């Protein structure tokens, strides 16, 4: 499959943009002594089916913008379009609903919940939905199988190796069949082999039509040829794409 | 302290209160079982032993009532409740006397209507031994005292169901 052509900022309103951010600012502790402007007029867009990287040093605001795109936080001002819907001012209830249906998350520290099994971890995103339990189990089994960790499904997560944990966290991101996968510094705690392995899987998912956005400062990620678009950030601003 | 020990005394004296029925009669009165229902109103009879009445037929069949009132309703209109019997088939009629809670023959007592003593179905024709009718009438505001044979439809208290406002 051919890689989609890179999109530009002007494509905000283009139908192919699955994510479009326009003039987004985020200020923490507004009006107080420790006021912090994490984002300052960020405008960017991501085309449907592409793989984009938010690149920048820590503190550049890439994690914050990822959180805003992923409907976890609301911006202080600006417009955030996800699948053509402005989510910037939605109450939490609706944000969660969109998050649940649209996004899969892969975190820096895997962020698996200890004390419960692999399978339970994977099914967690589905509990608040109305999906019946047997279907949840079927889905979890299918994904575990495709990621080759089915045999460890009843292990507690703390007993897994780093690579297995990583696959579990991918499985969890996929269980709700999201259109977009957001990854926050996914390789920062992985050795080169596992990082390569992860990128390999992400590119395969991208090939299956999923849009992928990765926040990272790891060259191993943004130097990959199949990354369509690199958005460079610094001090809460987009400095290049 | 006094009161408490006094109560202990009360408790220590246990005595049989309810007397069983023992009267030699033609057809001995029966004891209602937990299944016997009043044919007039459908209520179970056994929880109200101090009110129950009974009609025993010559063939040994019988009917229990939750009080004299329903017994009279039945007695004065047998075909309505029991097509196979007439008053000629009756062997004995018993009611429970108010003061003694003893089962007595219905023609040996007096029925007082209009009193403030309520049976399980409200107003009743209370069965009283003849010698105590006066006491009862004055104590409980009785209105009319009737012998068994004098009771007519008009004397049966309405119950509380049908009075028209």
């Amino acid at each position, binding site marked *: 499959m051919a890689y989609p052509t890179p999109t530009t900022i002007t494509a905000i309103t283009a139908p192919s943009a699955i994510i479009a951010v326009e003039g987004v600012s985020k200020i923490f502790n507004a009006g107080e002594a420790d006021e912090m402007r994490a984002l300052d007029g960020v405008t960017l867009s991501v085309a449907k089916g592409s793989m984009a990287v938010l690149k920048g040093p820590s503190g550049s605001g890439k994690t914050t913008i990822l959180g805003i795109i992923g409907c976890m936080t609301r911006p202080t001002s600006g417009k955030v379009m996800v699948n053509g819907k402005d989510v910037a001012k939605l109450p939490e209830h609706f944000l969660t609903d969109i998050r649940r249906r649209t996004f899969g998350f892969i975190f820096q520290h895997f962020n698996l919940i200890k004390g419960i099994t692999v399978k339970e971890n994977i099914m*967690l995103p589905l509990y608040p939905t109305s999906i019946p339990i047997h279907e949840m189990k079927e889905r979890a089994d299918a994904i575990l199988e495709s990621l080759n960790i089915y045999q460890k499904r009843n292990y507690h997560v703390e007993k897994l190796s780093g690579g297995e944990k990583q696959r579990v966290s991918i499985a969890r991101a996929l269980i709700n069949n999201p259109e977009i996968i957001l990854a*926050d510094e996914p390789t920062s705690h992985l050795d080169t082999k596992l990082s390569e392995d992860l990128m390999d899987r992400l590119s395969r998912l991208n090939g299956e039509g999923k849009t992928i956005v990765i926040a990272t400062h790891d060259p191993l990620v943004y130097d990959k040829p199949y990354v369509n678009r690199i958005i460079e950030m610094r001090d809460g601003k987009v400095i290049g794409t | 302290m006094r009161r408490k*020990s*006094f109560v202990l005394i009360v408790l*220590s004296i*246990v*005595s049989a209160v309810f007397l069983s029925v023992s009267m030699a009669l033609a057809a001995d009165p029966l004891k209602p079982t937990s299944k016997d229902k009043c044919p007039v109103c459908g209520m179970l009879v056994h929880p109200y032993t101090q009110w129950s009445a009974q009609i025993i037929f010559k063939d040994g069949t019988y009917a229990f009532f939750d009080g004299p009132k329903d017994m009279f309703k039945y007695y004065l209109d047998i075909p309505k409740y029991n097509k196979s019997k007439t008053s000629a088939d009756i062997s004995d009629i018993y009611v429970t006397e*108010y*003061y003694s809670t003893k089962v007595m023959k219905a023609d040996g007592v007096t029925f007082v209507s209009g009193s403030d003593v309520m049976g399980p179905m409200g107003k009743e024709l209370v069965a009283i031994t003849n010698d105590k009718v006066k006491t009862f009438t004055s104590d409980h505001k009785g209105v009319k005292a009737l012998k068994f044979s004098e009771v007519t439809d008009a004397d049966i208290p309405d119950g509380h169901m049908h009075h028209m406002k």
Partner: protein
Amino acid sequence: MFIYSIIVATLTSLLFLTQSLKKEAMDVFIEAPELIVQRMSAGRHDLIPVGYAEKILSIPGVSSVEPRYWGYYYDNLTGGNYTLIARNIDALHMVKGTLPKGPGECAIGKGVADVRLTDLNDVLFLSINPQQKVSLKVVGIFTADSAILTNDLVVMDKNDLVNFFALPKDMATDLIVHVSNASEVPTIAMKIRRDYPDTRPITRSEIVRTYENVFNWRGGMALTMFIGPLLAFAIFAWDKATGMSAGERQEIGILKAIGWETTDVLKLKFWEGMAISLTSFLTGSILAYIHVFYFGAALFAPVLKGWSVLFPPFNPIPYIDLYQIFVIFFLTVIPYLASTIIPSWKAAVTDPDTVMRS
């Protein structure tokens, strides 16, 4: 959670104890006479002429009247107070041996037997002064099952008792009146008062009510004392729920990030609270059951009972009432749940992006 169970166990023990004491007493009251007539003099209970019985018997509805003879005896030897009573037609069963059949014999309660170190066929000597004294052969001892009623009892022949207390001729302590039809009791009581204005008729339902009240009051008092600890516990629960560990915070952050909403976390917290409180509630109730019904409420029966000089040993009949359980549930589970609302909410509003910002 352990403290919680202990608190529930304490409360439940209290209620079980009062409840079964009450039940035991009430079971006996059921057989008590419908009406007791006492004579009052200067506002105090006085002896009653036996002659009153005749007129009372003539009241319609009265089936029998019996005089009773009884009194209290303070025993210098043991410092105990006994209740002496003349044998009536059918006194209590539950006796080892027999009841006294004539003068010079007696049956005694377990408590009396224990403090006087008396066994069957021993002699019980009672004395008020050199003129009023009596030696009785013990022919029966009441069994422990009936202790609540018979512990301090000495049952003897009527003549022995009359002589011992030097009661005037033709006077009794009180009269018991049996009534065939319970609905007539108020009318009869009224007539007795009319005929003998110096008497006080006491109906069985009055006694039952008084006792019901005493038991509720005792239980209620004891419960009130426990409101303090309960409150302290609620604050403790609050505190514990508020101090969320970093790990817990992280977990809730993860849940929210992967698609849980505040409401979902609140639900989770609710069920968590439910699980904790129900488990503690069940454990506590079972502990209380064992404590009260297998160990005779050994830990605090004295507080609750302590009403008799000769303290009756307590072998409660296992008796559980759904209502009691509901009351305990209300007193323990509900304050707990209420105290977890705000801490749960604080946890639930954790920002989903905390997991990325750490």
